[in-house]
């Protein structure tokens, strides 16, 4: 196969081929090996903020989404130490926001929830912050629920790079860092966001929601209800899904 000519690194003892210029995460996903991640999206430049994809290379911990793959690297990913670290990071994200899965429209297609299941996170462990984050229902077609924001900046990047609208941005810093919209009123209705925008389809959690679409797909039949995220993320599940029964709305746009 062509793989024979490609450079390789080892991840948890398995050879992973890569193209020069690929990061460890990109190469691993392409080779069908899942590494948990949230702020990474294949269509955007790696960002490296959630740190869930942290791996250990030669004793150093690095974010695999922003670290270029190198021939001969020995990468530790699903070791007890690294998985523990990832569990803590997921717990950090849960306690920082207000995440109530049972009442969330995104439950079942939420990456944070799916990653938590994948890692076996059973509880938040740390005391929740219970931040006060009012929702923005001003837009006729879109609801913003900031309570669930994990600050991955995907909507910011999509709106700036694909839509050319800069609808979203960040303000504040530290634990007070928060998503803002591009309007003096602070209201989404006063921005140029449209439902067709790329920014509508990249939120890994339940911040950016289409109005009048709630619970159209029943709980239990959603993206990660059907297939674990470690299959979806490496493209295995899509193939299986396509051969299975079609979803009621055709190709799902949720949590793309």
């Amino acid at each position, binding site marked *: 196969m062509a793989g024979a000519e490609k450079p390789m690194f080892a991840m948890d003892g398995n050879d992973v081929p890569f193209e020069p210029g690929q990061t460890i995460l990109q190469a691993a996903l392409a080779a069908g090996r899942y590494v948990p991640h949230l702020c990474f999206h294949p269509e955007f430049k*790696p*960002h*490296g*903020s*959630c*740190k*869930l994809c*942290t791996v250990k290379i030669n004793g150093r*911990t690095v*974010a695999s989404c*922003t670290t270029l793959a190198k021939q001969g690297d020995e990468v530790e990913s699903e070791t007890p130490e690294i998985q523990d*670290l990832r569990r*803590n*990071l997921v717990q*950090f*994200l849960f*306690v*920082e926001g207000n995440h109530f899965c049972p009442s969330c429209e995104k439950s079942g297609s939420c990456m944070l929830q799916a990653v938590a299941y994948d890692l076996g996170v059973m509880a938040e*462990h*740390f*005391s929740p*912050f219970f931040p006060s984050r009012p929702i923005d229902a001003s837009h006729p077609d879109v609801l913003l629920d900031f309570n669930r924001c*994990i*600050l991955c900046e995907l909507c910011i990047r999509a709106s*700036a790079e694909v839509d050319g609208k*800069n*609808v*979203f*941005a*960040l*303000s*504040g*810093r*530290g*634990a*007070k*860092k928060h998503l*803002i*919209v*591009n*309007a*003096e009123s*602070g209201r989404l209705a006063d921005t140029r966001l449209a439902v067709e925008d790329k920014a509508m389809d990249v939120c890994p959690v339940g911040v950016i929601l289409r109005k009048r679409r709630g619970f159209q797909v029943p709980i239990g039949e959603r993206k990660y209800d059907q297939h674990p995220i470690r299959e979806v993320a490496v493209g295995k599940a899509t193939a299986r899904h396509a051969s299975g029964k079609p979803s009621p709305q055709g190709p799902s746009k949720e949590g793309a």
Partner: protein
Amino acid sequence: MSRDLSAILARHQHDPLRLVQILRDVVEEHGFISPGTITTLAERLSLPRGRVEGVAGFYAFFPTENAGRYRVLFSDNITDRMAGSVELRQRMLEAFQVRDGEVSRDGLVSIGTTSCTGLCDQGPAMLVNGRAIPRLTRARIGSISAMIHGQAPLDTWPANLFDIHTHIERKDLLLSTPLAAGAAIDAAIARGPDATVAQVKASNLRGRGGAGFTTGVKWEMCRAAPGEAHYVVCNADEGEPGTFKDRVLLSDYADLVFEGMTVAAFAVGAKRGFLYLRAEYPFLLAPLEATLAERRKAGLLGKSIRGVADFDFDIEIHVGAGAYVCGEESALIESLEGKRGIPRNRPPYPVTSGYLQQPTVVNNVETLAKAAFVVMHGADWLRVRGTGRSAGTKVLSVSGDVARPGIYELPFGATVREVLDLCGATDVQAVQVGGPSGMLLSRSEQHRRIMFEDVPSAGAFMVFDDSRDILQVLENFASFFAHESCGFCTPCRVGTALQRRMLSALAKGYGTRRDLKDLARVAKVMKASSHCGLGATAGNAALDALEKFKPAFEKRLGTLEVMPTFDLDRSLAPAREVTGRDDDEAHLSHEEEE
């Protein structure tokens, strides 16, 4: 208002790269940055509005709502607290009947806290509308309060209130070698750029800002990197609590620092340089500008320096706006470009892709000062002092429980004991070397040596005697990191907040054994996965203390299996305030004590 903005924008050539400087001027003139101002600035600078709002919201000294005509910020380093800042702040809050961090009803004054202002040798200190006032006493607070009550303009306040003293207690190589302005530049020109870089490399000069990267290697990489332009940046964003040596170097040795920058520019081929000055040192701005003007007049800056065709170089001063993270070199560059100070993904490093993605050398103030002498006197000038891997001397900022706080220049390899003896410290319980991100040393570690091989230090040396509560020290450090985390990455953003909560609970006696385990766990998560040095080091002090000061924690632990992590009765205070009740029935504490 709009006309003011036009003047400010014109002063900055409508350059979006100068956004942080523009916002500084807005605050200077308007007191805060209103939503309407943000909209106007965004339109005039052709920036997305959210981008401007994001920058305004990032820096501590950019209020986005009315913060009063007098904005008082008490420096909240542990050394300020040890010198009585909490009581002084309380007095002032009472005098104006205003709550911490809030504006008085008449819009006259707001009183709050800010991270260490670098006046630890003459604390407690405060900033009023950005201007520093050191050596606070009850008397000083009294007269300041009276002047605010009387609405006296800041310019009419007695000048001696703002006097910053210089305490140099020990001079060594750097502080005692005289400089004839231009001598290091002449030496560099005589030798040529390649040999200049080689000489700095041979001296084994390492960065004095904390990381300790070899300066000559940095210059060499930058010189070799292809680019349309090269830049030299002096990192004077001295934000590590307990550090003030760069302040003194910039006040008393400014020529030397600029000489170092000019030599660096010659070595790497830079035409433009920036000095990024922390906002807490506004009193340095005018003298530094004056020094730059003199150097321009003397032909040490500008076109064809010393008659060398093509050796054009000049320096601009950029002032920060209250963000410790901007001491990280790539965050500093982001800030120089008028953005939120978020550390970049690296590689690429600034030496190949820095300011405007061009090759950029970022060096600490002290590093550049030493580089000037290395170029002037040769590599051995530095190596006569210090140890194998730590050549030369280190300028320390000594504060806390000592008889003579101030600046001490010592050869690398000096023991902690030697420093303590010099500065007159007795009954020493602990020393924090390198600031909150550095190392917490116990009394049994006074034999340890200050050098890269053992106890590295960016300059801070804070001493705590037996009367001090280590948990309060740790709580202060934890608050600092939580306040200064940029929030980019999960581990630091959430970890520093969790750490602050846990240490606050432990210091107040609401902690449990589980908190001790969690504290260590959070510190390890931050260390392993943070995006930059801020998060990676934010748990150092707690980890050190858990190992070396265990009894201080144990003494304070709750005895119960399960403890509430808060004071139940105090949590009802807002309810009492809303209902206007304060009788026994509105309190829980009596029933709790069984």
